């Protein structure tokens, strides 16, 4: 009874969160309707993005006391209400941390209008960035965290948490000593956290936790063996397909965690080198995962930031991914041709053991998970018609499974990878810090100048730079940092409004993971398990096999993106 009660409580909590995300915010909207303003205007940065939180004051010339003040809203707008006598001269001062101060003197006509009670709208103000000590602090902390995560010196979550805490500590404790050490306050930092991403990942974790315990991965792998009849050249693409589809619908780290041990066992049965199956599998996971919004963490980040739906990913990326996948299969058959010829004589003892284990352990759970999964897919595809956020769909699916299957709630809570969720929150804060101090603006400006107004050049630069950088730096923080840059390029490069550059980032950052062992998390878990089975994957080995795959798959995906957006005139979301 107690267990049931706790289960219902968790379900109610998830449902509550779903409703909170989906219900309109009428209260906030009502509050937004202020009194009639007299002086209004908007403040933007050099990239044309609205500047929120700038202090706008109005004072009479040569006098320091302000006669009205306001703070800019998320859309960059401000409204100043004047209640006193209007002086002969008026100056609007705009002040915001990490920007140069701006001043606008109202002309005589504007002052006259104010005196007659008529509101005036000032021209848009562009604030210029300046490099402050806070800029250096945030940049150094971000680069250090990125390096620590990439080299694995600290746990990802701990590294990101230390970085975020350092930014807060310097902002709060350093601020009284030097004003320009301030990066942002706690509320300011939370504005950068994308809760859609957090809840989508959390909901999917619960769904995956139910699915992974049903034995479906082991059964599918064994069926792949059965269908192929032990012929390695056929087994290879079937296992790649199973891994790819699972990675597109579930999390690709979990997919490889479950596929790697069973694949090693199949290879041992066939007396062949497991790496001939594992390497193509993990590469397929990195490539095919890109085809859906929920397939990779980077796509979840890109989808939420760029407002790109599940459907948009299917329409604009899936054909390109299939093309790249086909290329990857052909390449894998060629790269492992000797190993594929060597296997094929199964050991009866091991085969019997494998068949014994490759069973669906919880058929009832699998059936229910299948029904809920199908419903979730329908909602992911058609939900955008009613503005249903993917995070809400994931939470509804997770809730439905919890209520229907009634699993051990303690196990389900353990299955939610809280460390990953904390990692994402800390990462958003860190990326927010470099965005706040202007590092992202400088990078965006530099790339903008590099590509000029050339869309093709921008597409190639984003795709290939992301791919190459993803081989040496962790691709999740890299993608998170690149999103505002891509947002800026989307605004300034003619033709990029189709959001094509977001798809280029998606392809580059995820498929780029095939270029090196540390390029993606699935690579690391696959290598970890393979090493514990006596088949180590060295950095050089991965580079030799993976980099050609990167070149082939990204070339094919780039070809598709060029065709889709430049020839077929695709729109991205």
């Amino acid at each position: 009874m107690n267990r049931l009660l706790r289960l219902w409580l968790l379900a109610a909590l998830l449902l509550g969160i779903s409703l909170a995300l989906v219900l309109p915010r009428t209260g906030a909207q009502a509050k937004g309707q202020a009194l009639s303003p007299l002086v209004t205007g908007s403040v933007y940065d050099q990239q044309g993005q609205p500047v929120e939180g700038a202090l706008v004051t109005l004072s009479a010339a040569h006098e320091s006391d302000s006669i009205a003040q306001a703070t800019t809203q998320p859309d960059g707008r401000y409204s100043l209400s004047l209640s006193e006598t209007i002086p002969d001269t008026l100056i609007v001062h705009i002040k915001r941390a990490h920007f140069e101060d701006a001043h606008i003197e109202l002309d005589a006509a504007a002052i006259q209008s104010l005196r007659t009670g008529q509101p005036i709208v000032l021209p848009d103000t562009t604030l210029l960035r300046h490099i402050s000590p806070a800029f250096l602090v945030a940049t150094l902390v971000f680069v250090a965290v990125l390096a620590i995560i990439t080299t694995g010196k600290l746990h990802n979550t701990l590294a990101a948490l230390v970085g975020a805490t350092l930014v807060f500590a310097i902002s709060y404790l350093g601020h009284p000593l030097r004003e320009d050490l301030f990066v942002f306050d706690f509320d300011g930092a939370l504005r950068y956290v994308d809760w859609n991403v957090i809840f989508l990942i959390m909901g999917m974790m619960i769904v995956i936790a139910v699915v992974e315990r049903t034995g479906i991965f082991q059964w599918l792998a064994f069926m792949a063996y059965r269908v192929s009849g032990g012929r390695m050249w056929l087994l290879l693409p079937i296992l790649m397909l199973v891994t790819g589809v699972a990675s597109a619908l579930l999390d690709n780290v979990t997919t490889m965690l479950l596929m790697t041990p069973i694949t090693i066992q199949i290879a041992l049965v066939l007396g062949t080198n497991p790496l001939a199956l594992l390497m193509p599998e993990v590469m397929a996971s990195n490539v095919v995962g890109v085809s859906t919004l929920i397939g990779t963490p980077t796509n979840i980040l890109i989808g939420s930031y760029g407002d790109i739906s599940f459907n948009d990913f299917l329409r604009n990326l899936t054909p390109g991914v299939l093309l790249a996948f086909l290329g990857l299969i052909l390449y894998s058959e060629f790269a492992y041709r000797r190993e594929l010829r060597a296997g094929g004589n199964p050991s009866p003892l091991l085969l019997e053991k494998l068949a014994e284990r490759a069973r669906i352990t919880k058929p009832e759970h699998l059936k229910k998970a299948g029904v809920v999964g199908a419903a979730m897919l329908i909602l992911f595809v058609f939900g955008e018609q009613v503005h249903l956020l993917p995070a809400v769909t994931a939470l509804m699916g997770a809730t439905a499974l919890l209520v229907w299957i009634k699993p051990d709630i303690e196990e389900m809570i353990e299955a939610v990878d809280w460390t990953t969720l904390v990692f994402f929150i800390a990462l958003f804060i860190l990326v927010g810090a470099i965005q706040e101090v202007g590092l992202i603006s400088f990078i965006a400006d530099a790339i903008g100048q590099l590509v000029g107004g050339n869309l093709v050049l921008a597409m190639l630069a984003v795709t290939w730079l992301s791919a190459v950088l993803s081989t040496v730096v962790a691709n999740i923080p890299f993608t998170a940092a690149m999103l505002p840059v891509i947002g800026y390029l989307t605004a300034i490069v003619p033709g990029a409004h189709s959001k094509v550059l977001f798809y280029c980032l998606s392809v580059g950052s995820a498929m780029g993971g095939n270029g090196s062992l540390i390029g993606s998390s699935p690579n690391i878990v696959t290598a970890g398990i393979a090493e514990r089975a006596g088949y180590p994957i060295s950095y050089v080995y991965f580079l030799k096999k993976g980099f050609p795959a990167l070149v082939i798959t990204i070339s094919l995906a780039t070809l598709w993106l060029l065709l889709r957006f430049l020839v077929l005139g695709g729109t991205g979301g």
Partner: protein
Amino acid sequence: MSGIVCAIRGGPASQPTIAQAVTLAQKTGLPLHFLYVVNLDFLSRVGSGRVHTISEEMHQMGEFILLTAQATATAQGVTAQGAVRHGNVGDEIIGLCRELDAAYVILGQPQVQGKANIFTKNLLKKFSERIERETGAKVFFAEGSGM
């Protein structure tokens, strides 16, 4: 003192270790026990919380690897047992030696990626001394092998 403990990891590098253990079992007539230790340190790099599920999968994979070693021993007329343990490799080897009152331990010298561990060259000698001190078993290293 009875029994031989042979800790293996699987793969081609384990074959000399398995072969030496089988030869020793044939010579001494002592029962042979293969040991596979599930160690999930690599998960710390990716921060996965799926320890329970992956632990079960690795356990099954370990049993499978032990089966292949047992099959090799059987082919040479030696009946071998297999044991899968979870945790620190060194502690588990010593634990099994104590349980079985092992007379011999056969170790390989695997090339382990990442940070130093007991199988790193300079630490391996210390580890073998520890085994001999704590269990009384004699330690042999298989030449040109991995664990």
